[in-house]
């Protein structure tokens, strides 16, 4: 192998001033670079095929009717394969969420930045720690120390605005993209 790529003579830089050697180096580099680009572009379809497919993306929005949900109640809907918590908050819960000192929060966010209508809190029901579903949707569930949700896996507590207050989770429950299509209907996604 070494014999064929470096025939005797060229290895000794026969061209004056080492010009031949530098031209050869350039050819090696250029060939290597083109080869690397070629490999990368050939590998990309394999990698990207593992990203969400068109039909998975197409299921990305749903409509939810809020009319049957009474004050103090909560419903869970499935969106993009994940649970979404929709809670019809009571005046007390809204008050609790608003009176928190933002400086104390791990992931500071004002309550009115997390809701579009104060009585409806809509968050993705997945703990930001390691992806468990927190408890607190059913009346019988523990709601943690801050009246919101409690994740049983590793003990994260969320408040009535879905903000992390205690436990290992690093961030607040995620607020999905949504818009009210009428007073009692909302479109997720």
């Amino acid at each position, binding site marked *: 192998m070494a014999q064929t790529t470096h025939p005797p003579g060229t290895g000794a830089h026969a061209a004056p001033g080492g010009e031949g050697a530098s031209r050869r180096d350039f050819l090696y580099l250029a060939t290597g670079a083109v080869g690397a680009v070629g490999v990368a572009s050939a590998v990309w379809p394999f*990698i990207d095929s*593992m*990203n*969400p*497919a068109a039909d*998975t993306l197409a299921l990305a929005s749903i409509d939810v009717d809020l009319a049957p949900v009474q004050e103090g109640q909560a419903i*869970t809907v*499935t969106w*993009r*394969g*994940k*649970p979404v918590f929709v809670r019809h908050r009571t005046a007390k819960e809204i008050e609790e969420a608003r009176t928190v000192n933002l400086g104390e929060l791990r992931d500071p966010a004002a309550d009115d930045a997390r809701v579009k209508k104060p009585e409806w809190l809509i968050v993705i029901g*997945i703990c930001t*720690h*390691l*992806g*468990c*579903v927190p408890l607190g949707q059913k009346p019988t569930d523990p709601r943690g120390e801050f009246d919101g949700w409690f*994740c*049983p*896996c*590793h*003990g994260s507590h969320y408040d009535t605005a879905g903000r992390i207050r205690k436990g*290992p*989770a*690093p961030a607040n429950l995620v607020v999905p993209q949504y818009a009210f299509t009428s007073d009692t209907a909302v479109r997720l996604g």
Partner: protein
Amino acid sequence: MAQAHAPQFKNPVVKWIDSRLPIFTMLDHEYNQYPMPRNVNYLWAFGAIAGIMLVIMIATGLVLAMQYAANTHIAFESVERIMRDVNYGWLLRYVHANGASMFFIAVYIHMFRGLYYGSYKAPREILWILGVLILLAMMATAFMGYVLPWGQMSFWGATVITNLFSAFPLVGDPIVTWLWGGFSVDNPTLNRFFALHFLLPFVLLGLVVLHTAALHVSGSNNPLGIDPKGPQDTVPFNPYVTVKDGFAVVVFLIFYAAFVFFAPNYLGHPDNYIPANPLVTPAHIVPEWYFLPFYAILRAIPDKLGGVLAMFGAIAVLAALPWLDTSKVRSCKFRPIYRQFFWILAIDALVLGYAGAMPAEGVWLLVARIGTAYYFFHFLILLPLLGKLERPLPLPASICEPVLKGGGRVAAGAHAKPMEKA
């Protein structure tokens, strides 16, 4: 190795093949004449046992794959069909499911053997690192295999473990979406896990071939940790080691069969007989037992990224072990201080495993934190220092010396046996 000579085959077909492709010469060289240190004990059988386990897992896995359906709608039912309707399906599935545990038992004993007798030291560093890679491939394979029945623990185990990657800043979330092929663990995830669960055992097999090839370059270590000085220190692999390993394999298979036939679900979790439900998290997610020490380390660190790094670091530190242990003496027999710390490490691993099975709160969280701190202390601080501070006992001149000289400086009673014709 040195005394190996080309064998003469009588069978003309064997002769004809061997002169064109010397597989028979190679087999004779590596598995017939291959010189083993004459003093290896039964702990040296666990490499062979682990190899047998890999073969059993591939064989049972192949036939199970012919009955299994990797689709979230029918995966759980297809596993129940294997259990109830497929001929011997219950047996094959229980052999496969318990086989994973047995494989890890064999490999963990094999690893602690290497730790005790210093089998990772020069010239066996690459051999050891290949072993660490085998452990990583086994862990990935076992994790994906546990997802396939699509029970509650499958789903939530997959969710928790894939979410580990979201701890990395910036690239974390795109990586998790890419791993899932969607926005949560779902059908695309199950499909790719099945494909990878089928592929990885063959990657594992390739690594095992390299591991064995590297072993046969340096030769096996032995309880004294000194190199054989000549033919008087070794015995040919066949029949001495084939018979000894064979006996150990049979005893191990009896232990394995006891689980398969009398406690097939003892090592599993009952929640995995509940079909996966993305809307309900089990109250207490626990991985399979062989991941528990690492799971304890993950949960011991109060920071998400820190926990993930510590967990992967717990394995990465093993790969660096040949350079972290500065002592030139291999075997614990001649390292009186390290020998005690070895057992503390073994107990630490068990304690971490127990803490990993308990809820991460109160005293268990504290235990996991102390255990994690000790684990890293052992490898990163104790081993580099101990090699310099400890005064090892004098090594015997050769493997057969303590036997032939009737004792010598090591307690040789256990080795006292008549010498074969050399």
